[in-house]
């Protein structure tokens, strides 16, 4: 029961780190300052590296808005009336990003079906681009986890990239933006990994309200995001702008998840 209707005196924003937490806070300082100026209340950013912690905090009202990945949102919105309201839009591709299935540079595989019988590494079990979308890509080629390949859950994108680069696995699923960043920064030598297949466009992460926020206040926040022009604030999200988001934006992902669940009841994780 979050029937609280009075406007809060403070906005708490939950983020997941792509950098170390203080860096995330520092990078997002323009966004925080902008929100504080626009909303005329104090704004605080908290960073949790764990999907479960952030989304549970949102569900129980310990944070007011959070930036959630599609799968996290889908799972959590079954249990709490969350409301997505904005997502970043990128130059050229719109409001989407991609996952990739990568193989060691020397791998003989040329198509996904060549991975049959091998070990494939994935990131966090709740990660959209690190686990669910790559699994769906494989499924689309008829490869089912546990039957046609062995799932190795490594918990993080970087671990997947490292495992593939060191030829510890036949392939790995990873978020494409993260892969590109790792390559650009030289964290993973470019000659060690090769992209086997990119995924179809995935709906972007969504800014999501917790349940029970005052509607007028929600409108203020939504407008603040949609009208955000500050280049520094947007750059952190590699975005041109924030565009409106709604629940049905992630229907594609819902379908993919359902597809995986349909075939994987026995052979791998099957959420009910």
């Amino acid at each position, binding site marked *: 029961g979050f029937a609280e209707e009075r406007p809060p005196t403070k906005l708490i924003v939950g983020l997941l780190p792509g950098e170390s937490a203080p860096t995330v806070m520092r990078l997002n300082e323009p966004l925080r300052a902008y929100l504080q100026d626009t909303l005329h209340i104090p704004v605080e950013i908290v960073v949790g590296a764990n*999907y*479960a912690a952030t*989304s*549970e905090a949102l569900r*129980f*009202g310990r944070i007011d808005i959070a930036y959630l990945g599609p799968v996290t949102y889908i*799972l*959590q919105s*079954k*249990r709490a009336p969350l409301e997505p309201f904005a997502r970043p839009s990128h130059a050229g591709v719109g409001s989407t990003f991609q996952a990739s299935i990568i193989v060691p540079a020397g791998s003989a595989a040329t198509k996904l079906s060549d991975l049959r019988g091998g*070990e494939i*590494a994935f990131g*966090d*079990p*709740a990660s959209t681009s690190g686990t669910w979308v790559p699994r769906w890509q494989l499924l689309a080629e008829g490869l089912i986890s546990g039957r046609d390949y062995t799932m*190795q*859950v*490594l*918990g993080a994108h970087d*671990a997947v990239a*490292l*495992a593939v680069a*060191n030829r*510890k*696995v036949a392939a790995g699923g990873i978020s494409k933006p993260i892969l590109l960043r790792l390559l650009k920064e030289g964290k993973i030598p470019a000659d060690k990994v090769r992209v086997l297949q990119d995924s179809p466009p995935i709906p972007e992460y969504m800014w999501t309200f917790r349940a029970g926020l005052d509607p007028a206040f929600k409108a203020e926040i939504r407008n603040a995001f949609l009208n955000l022009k500050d280049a520094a604030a947007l750059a952190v999200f590699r975005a041109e702008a924030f565009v409106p988001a709604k629940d049905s934006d992630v229907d594609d992902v819902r379908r993919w998840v359902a597809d995986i669940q349909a075939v994987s009841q026995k052979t791998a*994780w099957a*959420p*009910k």
Partner: protein
Amino acid sequence: MNDINPTPEFDVIDTEWRRREHLKYAFTIGAALCCATAFSFAGGFEFSRYEGAPSTVLKLAADSWPPDFSRWREWGRPLLETLATGVTGTVLGAALALPFAALAAQNIGPSPFIRQSVRIFLNAIRSLPGLIWGVIFVAAIGFGPLPGAFALGVHSTGMLGKLFFEAMEHVDPSPGAALKAHGASELAVFRFAVLPQAVPRLVDALIYRFEHNLRAATTLGVIGAGGLGLQIVTAFHLFEYKEASALIILLLIVVTAVNLLGARVRRRLLAL
């Protein structure tokens, strides 16, 4: 008591007694203040934060009830993996910890320099989080229970080393002194006086650590070491609390069994 004739000596002793008593109170108050400062720095005195906390915990508990054992058939192998990881890690750790502890204990170690070096070494390997040891070993020898076992082994060396040398330092020195007076070498004193006295505590520490390692697989599961831990974290990250609670109950049963078995081994075999 009217039957006691105080002598002037009594006053001297009573003054000293009160001085010591005051010292104790002062220390207690000082320590309490330290704790209160830490608590307040952590935000523990912002009582508004506790609002809704009990209901949240209850809600989460309700979400986890009843535990869902429907997939128990799939837990056999992870359970075995966890046991194998735990046993191997603990045995490796104990085997390495014993000589280090002997070098680090004040009452047996060969020299203060070696003692301090070994202690710092033990501190150092403890300072690397188990998770990072896990990543290192996954990188070095690939996935599965083995890197987990090694990570636990190294980390356990640091921990058990400390627990062991403390247990050794606490033994009654007189039997050791007796052996020494009878021409026993340092090593013989260690084996025939310190070790036999310390053994019940060493076994306690070992069981404690074994139990810890069984549960630590929870953290390590995520980095590709598998076992029950991965199951728990996955269930938790996907908000399958009913299944997570079933897994935790399974873990509790295993842990309790280990403790009972340990107690029995101690009673039976060490009583010999």
